């Protein structure tokens, strides 16, 4: 089980990767809201 200490350590250590993932998520989320419905599914 992850305890708070472990999580804090991992966040502190890997925060750049998490920030990057978060930014990607922001962009993806924003685009999903902006795009009309027909363009949502892209293969």
């Amino acid at each position, binding site marked *: 089980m992850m305890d708070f200490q472990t999580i804090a350590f991992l966040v502190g250590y890997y925060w750049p*990767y998490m920030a990057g*993932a978060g930014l990607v998520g922001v962009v993806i989320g924003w685009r999903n809201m*902006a795009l009309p419905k027909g363009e949502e599914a892209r293969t």
Partner: protein
Amino acid sequence: MIDLDHVLEIALLIAAAYMGGCAIGAAAHWALRSMRAAKSRASTPAPVVAFEATAVAEPTPPALSPAMRLAKAEPVAVEPVKLSAVRRPPELPAPRGVPDDLKRIKGIGKKTESSLNDLGIYHFHQIAAWEPAHIVWLEGRIAVKGRIQREQWVEQATLLLTELRAAS
């Protein structure tokens, strides 16, 4: 060296960061859109159905027949006719074919038409050929003095004659 025990934890944290970012991005976009919509609603006033007061056009006068138009025109001043020159207008013993509808002349009713027929006047060309001397002669008999000139019977008859000839 990465501790393999924590790989899953790291992956979960990164995935959580990614999903958090998606949620933040979507929420930010939705918030911005709502703000813009509220702003545009506030800035643009409610469309007022502008009642374009169309210029009330003056009522067009009813189309007048040529005879009526002529009748409304200013009468031409006629020199007074000498009493000695007064004479009866040329008459016909009977109408040539179908008599013209003299009632089309404004001022001539059934009674006047009948009186004109009795005097041998059946057609527009006869009236169109009236001279002042004829008019003076007629005024004492079928019309009030000055009426024939005031209502321009001769001019009306000329116009109607032109119409008839154009139609035939």
